[in-house]
């Protein structure tokens, strides 16, 4: 069949068949989530007789009510919120200052230090976590919120990202400000920092998600039940692979725990995508 529509470059790259395959795969990908959502709306007793009960009424919100009553889960939720917020504020502060300096100021060994920091990008968590655990032991910081926040602030990614963002601001802006008799700190605070607000949002949301989802460090640092984050807490309630009691409650926990990040994702999808693809693609 002849294509009579006007030429568009998309005609050469797009393919209807590929798109529909992707759509079918997406449905498959969604299936487990829908399965969990269904289970979370079922009474645990109903599920004991077979999980195919999920396809039949009645449905109930009792599992979610149980979570809110269960102070443990709510406490974990608060811990996650405190840790993720604190770590995000810390990262934004440290990385904005450092990114500005690396992009705009001259100081001895600037290039060398920046390269060392970039090497930090290549250090995997498992190479430092044992020593970190020992260090926090020395100063007795385990089972505190501070201990959960601090390691994430050493990430070189934020510095790299903020340096890039500051570099993207034309130098003439600083120069105009200098001719306007602006002090160095005022240039940073009043002129450049407001211009990085979109970047701050990107890095902030990205850091928040990382902190919220962190697993290994809270697993070994927060050993007291009341210091668990949501991630660790929910993992601790799963006993073994064959567990089939309380499936409804477990499923409701999964949905409840992912709600904050899903909401953040829905509202800030663009920022998150910018963050993960930032700098990776030239």
């Amino acid at each position, binding site marked *: 069949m002849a294509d009579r529509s006007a030429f568009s470059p998309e005609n*050469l790259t797009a393919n209807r068949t590929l798109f529909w395959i992707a759509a079918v795969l997406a449905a498959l990908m969604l299936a487990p989530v829908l399965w969990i959502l269904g289970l979370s709306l079922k009474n645990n007793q109903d599920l004991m007789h*077979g999980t195919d009960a999920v396809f039949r009424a009645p449905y109930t919100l009792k599992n979610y009510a149980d979570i809110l009553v269960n102070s443990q889960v709510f406490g974990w939720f608060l811990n996650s919120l405190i840790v993720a917020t604190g770590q995000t504020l810390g990262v934004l502060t440290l990385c904005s*200052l450092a990114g500005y300096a690396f992009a705009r100021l001259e100081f001895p060994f600037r290039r060398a230090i920046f390269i060392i920091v970039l090497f930090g990008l290549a250090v995997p968590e*498992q*190479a430092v976590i044992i020593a*970190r655990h020992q260090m926090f032991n020395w100063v007795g910081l385990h089972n505190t919120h501070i201990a959960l926040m601090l390691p994430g602030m*050493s990430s070189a990614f934020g510095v790299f990202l903020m340096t890039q963002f500051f570099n993207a601001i034309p130098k003439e802006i600083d120069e105009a400000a200098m001719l306007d008799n602006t002090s160095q700190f005022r240039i940073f605070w009043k002129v450049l920092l407001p211009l990085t607000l979109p970047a701050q949002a990107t890095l902030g949301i990205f850091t928040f*998600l990382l902190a919220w989802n962190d697993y290994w460090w809270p697993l070994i640092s927060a050993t007291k039940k009341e210091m668990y984050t949501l991630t660790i807490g929910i993992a601790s309630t799963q006993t073994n692979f064959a567990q089939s009691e309380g499936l409804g409650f477990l499923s409701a926990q999964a949905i409840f*725990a992912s709600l904050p990040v899903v909401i953040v994702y829905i509202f800030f999808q663009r920022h998150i995508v910018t963050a993960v693809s930032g700098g990776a693609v030239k």
Partner: protein
Amino acid sequence: MAESYRRSRWSNALFVAPYLVVFFALLVFPLFWGMWLSLNKVDLFGGGQFIGLRNYARVLSDPVFHQAVRNTVVFVAVSVPTLVGLGLFLALALNKTTRGSSFLRGLYFSSSILSVTIVTLIWRIVFIPNDGLMALIFNVLGLEPIGFLSTKGWSLFSVGVATVWWCIGLPMMLLLAALQQIPADLYEAAALDNAGKWRVLTRITLPSIKPTIMLVAVIQIVMQFQLFGQALIMTNGGPAGSSRPIVMYIYETAFIRWDVGMGAAASELLFVIILCAAMFQYWISSRKEVA
């Protein structure tokens, strides 16, 4: 550039000082302290005693470690090509400005924002024997249900399925970003040159994003070598250690058995393995460039 206002000053370094303190205290120092620990006999109660390379010898002669390395290599060898291939397919399929495409892009990336706990919880409930979604489907099809998480071979496979489900967003997004950087006039020129879809794909699109494909592969190799949470929560490494990855071995050695020095040695070994694998991948890709 030596603009007068950019005179090199020590005071300027004050802006980086706060970060550098954290960076050196919590990244650089632990990195080297970890190396030192790997040369010592250390347990829960501290008390280091220098024992040279003996921790490494112990790790390297531990059959459990051998098994973990085998598991991890198999896992990486299967999951990384899957992630890159599937990511590339999705990027090509969804590189359009239509609403449907952008919705599907958002959907495919959405799983990446979940924590490992949630992902494993979802997939455990899918894979549970008798009551799981898979068991249900097998029953409907009249097949004998498989104990996905408790059968040798299937357990690592199940961990892989959950991992691909969890991680597919990043490769797709990176490749999409690369696809969108290809200038449209390249395709217009190709159209004027009478190129068909297949030739456009193989001669223009793929060569243009080749560096990104390589980058994505390296990122995924580095990430998947560090497989941990999925295996720990879904299968606890079982059955019989058949799904225990290296990081879980490190975790168990250092934080369950509190053989800190040996755990540190294993983590240094993994660090080296990852660096070698990434460099090997990089070398392969740059060598093809020359040929």
